[in-house]
C-alpha cells in the first residue's frame, strides 16, 4: 500500500452536503485523456457505494485523434441513483470537461443549471479555435446559466506528482485521476476502489501507481479544501434486491455467460473470432480464462472463425463465434451449413451502426432482419437478445443451452450500448445456474445420423472418435433419418419443414411473457434488446401520469413467445420503438396483422426517455 503525505493539510472550509436522488455525470476530453477510464472508475466507486447505475461510453473510431479536435472527443456518461434506474440518463447534470472541444460537443446536452468542471489549462487560444469558440466560454459569460467550476487540472496534477521524476508528458497523463478525485469528492464517492485498481493495473511500474494515486487524492482534497466548492452532494444507496453485487459491462457478462454455460455443460469452449469493434472485448476476456477448458482462436477472417467454431462443435465442444455487422455477413454461408448439418453453434452479433463500416463505435439494433432472414433459402435459426448489460450473462448462457438442446445455430444479438455499458449485477450462484445436459450418442444400436428426438426434433450429437458411429454429414440435401445425400423432391420439403419445426419448438422453452403495467389497455409498447431501460423508464413515467400504457420486452426474437399474440390482442394500439427503421415492427405486423407503429432512431445513440415519453403520449392522445 502506498501512502502520501505530500499534500499539505489545508484548513477545512465547512461544506454543506445536499442529498440527491439521481445524478448524471459526463466526463469528456481528448481520446488520449483517459476519459473512458475515469468514467469506468467513477462507475465502480458509485457501484461499491451501493447506488444503482447505468453508463454510456461514447468514443471516436480513431485511436488517438489529434488533440483538441471535435471529432477526437471521447466521452463517458454515468447515471447513478438511490432508486432503480434503467438508462444512463437523457441529459447530464454535470460535465467534467478536459478541453474546449469536449465542452463544445457536450454543452448542448447539459441540463439548465447544471455543473461544469473544466480544465482551464486547456482553454488556450489554439484549442478554443480548434473547437470553434471565438472567445473562451469560461470567461465570456456565455455559461451564465450554469454553475461553472474552472480548475487548472493540468497544473494541479503536475504539482501533485512533483518529485516523482516523471517527464511532463507522463505526469500530465495523470490528470484524469485528478478530475476523478475531484468528482468523487463532489459526490461523496469512495476512492478506495480506484486506489486498489491503480495498484493492480500499474503493478509493474510503481512510479505510476504513486503518481496516479497522488493525482486522485489531490483532486479529492482540492474539493475538500477549495472554497469554490461550497456544497457536496450525496446519493444514498439504492434499495436493490438483496445479494452480492458487482459492476459489469455487457461484453464482460457475455464472456462470462459463455464460460459458465460451457462449464455447466461440462464441455470445452471453443471461441473462434476475428477482432471487430465492439465485439473484440469478448474475445479478449474469454482468452484470459485459459485455465478453464477454453480455446480461443483468432482466425484469419470471420469465415474461418465461424468455420473453426463449427469444426469444434462437430468435435463435441461448445462452438462460439463473436462478431459485429460486417463480420456477420461473412458468416452466413457457414451458418447455413450448420443449419443443414444440425450442429449447435452460437454466433454473437454485437451490433454497431452501419451500413458498411458506418460508425463502428456507435450503437444500433438494425441487424435483426439479417439475423433472421439473411441466409440463402429457408434457413431458420434461433435468435435471442439480452436487454441489459447484466442480462447478457443469462442470455449468452441461454444461447448455449438452446443450441445444445435443439442442435441448432443460435444467434445472440447484443449491441454497442450493451457491450460497453455497465450496471450493478447481482452475482448468481453457480449452483443456481441450470445444468446443461448434453448426451453424446455412443451406442451404435439402431444409429442413424438424422434420427430425431421426438420432443425437440434434435438429432443426436455424435463425437468423431466414437467407435461404430462413423458417418458422413454435409451441406447437400439429405434424406430424412439416414442423412444420405438425396435430391428427392418430397424428402426435400419434408426436411425444410422439419428444420423449421425444430426451431419453432424452441417456443416450448420460452418463459411466459412479462407485461409491465396492466395486462390490457390502450397502448402496448413492444421492444427488444438494449432499449429496455429507456422503455421501462418511459412507460413507467407515463403510467405514473395515470395513463394506460404497458410494456413487453422480447428476449426471444425467433421463435417469438407463443403468448405474444394473446397479449397484443388485449391492447388497442401497439408501438414498436427500435434503433433501426422498423425491423421488429415488420415481423410483428406480418405475424399478428396488427397495425403497429414504429418509433425509430438511427443516430448511433440509445433512445432518450424524454423522446419516448413524448411519442407514447402522442399516441395515447391521438
Amino acid at each position, binding site marked *: 500500500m502506498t501512502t502520501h503525505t505530500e499534500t499539505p493539510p489545508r484548513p477545512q472550509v465547512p461544506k454543506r452536503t445536499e442529498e440527491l436522488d439521481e445524478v448524471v455525470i459526463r466526463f469528456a476530453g481528448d481520446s488520449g485523456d483517459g476519459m473512458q477510464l475515469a468514467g469506468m472508475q467513477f462507475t465502480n466507486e458509485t457501484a461499491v457505494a451501493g447506488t444503482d447505475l447505468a453508463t454510456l461510453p461514447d468514443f471516436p473510431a480513431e485511436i488517438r485523434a489529434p488533440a483538441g479536435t471535435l471529432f477526437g472527443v471521447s466521452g463517458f456518461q454515468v447515471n447513478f441513483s438511490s432508486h432503480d434506474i434503467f438508462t444512463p440518463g437523457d441529459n447530464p447534470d454535470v460535465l467534467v470537461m478536459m478541453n474546449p472541444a469536449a465542452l463544445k460537443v457536450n454543452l448542448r446536452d447539459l441540463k439548465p443549471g447544471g455543473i461544469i468542471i473544466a480544465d482551464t489549462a486547456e482553454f488556450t487560444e489554439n484549442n478554443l479555435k480548434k473547437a470553434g469558440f471565438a472567445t473562451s466560454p469560461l470567461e465570456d459569460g456565455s455559461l451564465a446559466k450554469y454553475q461553472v467550476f474552472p480548475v487548472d487540472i493540468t497544473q494541479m496534477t503536475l504539482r501533485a506528482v512533483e518529485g516523482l521524476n516523471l517527464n511532463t508528458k507522463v505526469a500530465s497523463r495523470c490528470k484524469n485521476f485528478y478530475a476523478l478525485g475531484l468528482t468523487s469528492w463532489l459526490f461523496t464517492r469512495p476512492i478506495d476502489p480506484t486506489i486498489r485498481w491503480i495498484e493492480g493495473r500499474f503493478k509493474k511500474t510503481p512510479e505510476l501507481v504513486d503518481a496516479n494515486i497522488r493525482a486522485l487524492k489531490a483532486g479529492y482534497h482540492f474539493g475538500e479544501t477549495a472554497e469554490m466548492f461550497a456544497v457536496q452532494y450525496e446519493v444514498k444507496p439504492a434499495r436493490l434486491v438483496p445479494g452480492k453485487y458487482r459492476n459489469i459491462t455487457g461484453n464482460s457478462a457475455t464472456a462470462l455467460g459463455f*464460460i459458465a454455460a460451457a462449464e455447466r455443460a461440462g464441455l470445452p469452449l471453443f471461441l473462434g473470432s476475428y477482432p471487430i469493434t465492439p465485439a473484440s472485448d469478448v474475445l479478449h476476456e474469454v482468452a484470459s480464462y*485459459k485455465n478453464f477448458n477454453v480455446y480461443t482462436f483468432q482466425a484469419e477472417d470471420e469465415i474461418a472463425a465461424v468455420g*473453426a467454431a463449427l469444426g469444434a462443435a462437430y468435435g463435441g465442444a461448445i462452438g462460439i463465434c463473436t462478431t459485429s455487422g460486417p463480420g456477420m455477413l461473412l458468416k452466413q454461408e457457414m451458418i447455413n451449413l450448420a443449419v443443414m448439418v444440425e450442429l449447435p453453434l452460437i454466433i454473437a452479433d454485437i451490433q454497431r451502426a452501419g451500413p458498411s463500416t458506418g460508425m463502428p463505435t456507435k450503437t444500433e439494433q438494425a441487424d435483426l432482419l439479417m439475423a433472421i432472414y439473411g441466409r440463402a433459402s429457408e434457413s431458420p435459426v434461433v435468435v435471442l437478445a439480452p436487454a441489459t448489460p447484466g442480462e447478457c450473462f443469462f442470455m449468452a448462457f441461454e444461447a448455449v443451452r438452446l443450441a445444445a438442446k435443439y442442435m441448432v445455430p443460435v444467434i445472440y444479438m447484443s449491441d454497442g450500448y450493451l457491450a460497453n455499458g455497465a450496471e450493478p449485477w447481482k452475482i448468481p450462484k*453457480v449452483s443456481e445456474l441450470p445444468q446443461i445436459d448434453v448426451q453424446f450418442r455412443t451406442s451404435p444400436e439402431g444409429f442413424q445420423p438424422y434420427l430425431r428426438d421426438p420432443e425437440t426434433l434434435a438429432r443426436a450429437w455424435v463425437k468423431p472418435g466414437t467407435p461404430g458411429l462413423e458417418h458422413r454429414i*454435409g451441406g447437400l440435401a439429405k434424406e430424412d433419418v439416414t442423412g444420405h445425400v438425396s435430391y428427392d423432391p418430397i424428402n426435400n420439403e419434408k426436411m425444410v419443414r422439419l428444420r423449421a419445426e425444430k426451431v419453432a419448438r424452441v417456443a416450448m422453452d420460452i418463459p411466459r411473457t412479462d407485461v409491465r403495467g396492466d395486462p390490457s389497455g390502450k397502448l402496448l409498447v413492444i421492444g427488444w434488446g438494449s432499449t429496455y431501460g429507456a422503455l421501462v423508464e418511459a412507460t413507467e413515467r407515463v403510467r405514473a401520469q395515470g395513463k394506460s400504457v404497458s410494456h413487453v420486452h422480447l428476449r426471444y426474437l425467433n421463435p417469438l413467445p407463443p403468448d405474444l399474440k394473446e397479449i397484443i390482442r388485449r391492447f388497442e394500439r401497439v408501438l414498436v420503438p427500435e434503433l433501426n427503421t422498423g425491423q421488429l415492427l415488420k415481423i410483428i405486423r406480418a405475424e399478428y396483422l396488427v397495425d403497429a407503429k414504429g418509433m425509430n432512431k438511427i443516430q448511433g445513440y440509445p433512445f432518450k426517455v424524454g423522446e419516448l415519453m413524448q411519442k407514447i403520449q402522442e399516441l395515447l392522445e391521438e
Partner: protein
Amino acid sequence: MSQAATPMLKLTRKDFMSDQEVRWCPGCGDYAILAQMQKVLPELGIPRDQLVFVSGIGCASRFPYYMNTYGFHTIHGRAPAIATGLKISRPELHVWVVTGDGDGLSIGGNHLIHALRRNVDIKILLFNNRIYGLTKGQYSPTSELGKVTKSTPFGSLDYPINPIEIALGAEATFVARSVDVETKHLQETLRRAHEHKGSAFIEILQNCNVFNDGAWEPITDRATKGDHQLVLEQGKPLVFGKNREKGIRLGKDMNPEIVTLGEGVDTSQLLVHDETNPSMAYILSRLGPQFPTPIGVFRAVKRMTYDEGANAQIESAKKRLGPGDLEAILNRGDTWVVK
C-alpha cells in the same frame, strides 16, 4: 473416447469403403486416389473412428462420402478452417482435408495458407486437375496461361499459381507432390504425410477426363514419364530420364541445369535432395517447363504444431493458476452486498 476398448482388429481396404455408390465420372483420376487411401489406412493401425475427412466443394470434395470413417463435406473453400477448429479441440483425432485446385487455391487460398503457417496438424490433399470439374469446366488457378474454357473462350489471362511454391511460401512444414496413377508413390506419400507431425500439404496431380483430359499426360504416360518425372528421394542425387541418364546440377547464380550423366559428369556433381533445405525445395518447386516435374517430398521439417501449443497453453495455465473456478471469476473485482 473408448479407443482403448476397441479391439484392434486388423482392418482391410474394404473396411474403409462406405456404403455409398461412388459418383465420379467413369475414368476420373479421383477413383485411384480413393483406392490408395483405402489401401494405406489399414496399414497405419488407426481405428476408423479416429479418422475424420473434411472437404470443401468440388468433385474432389465428395471424397469423404466414400470413406467409412467420420466425414464432413462442408462448403466451398473453407475445409481447412473447419478442420482447424476440430483438430485444436480434439487433438487426438487424425484429421485429413480433401480439396481441389479451385476449392483450395481459388476461394480457399487464404485458409490454406493460414492453416499451413499455423502448422495445425492436419493433412491437406489438393487434387489438382487444373480445372473446375463440378461446375463443368471453367479454368482454375492452376490452369495454364491462355487456357480456353467455357469461361475463357478467348483464353485465360492469369499466370497460374504453383501450389507447391505457395505452400512453401507459407512456410508449410511438409510439402509434397504425387500423382493419381502412381499408386505406390501415392501410398508412400500419404503415409509420410500421416507420419509427419504438423500440417502436411500434398498436391496430387489428377486427371479430369471429362473437362481437362490429359492435363498431366507427359508425367503419367509410360512413354514419356521417364523424362518428365523427377522422383525426389531424401539424400539421393537428382537423377531422372528413361534410363536414369540425366541429372540436375546447380549452375551459375543458383540456376539449376540439366546434365547428361556420363559425359564427364557423374552423380557426385548433382544436387542431392534434402527435405530440410528450404532453398532446395524452393528451386525444385519452380523448375521451368524444360525440366522434369518433381514428385515426392519437397520439404519436411519439424516445428511446434498449433494444436499442441493451444492445448499446452491450457494445461500450463491450469498448472499456474489452478483449474478454472467459475464462482471465483463471477465474483471478480469489486463486489458489495445489498441486504
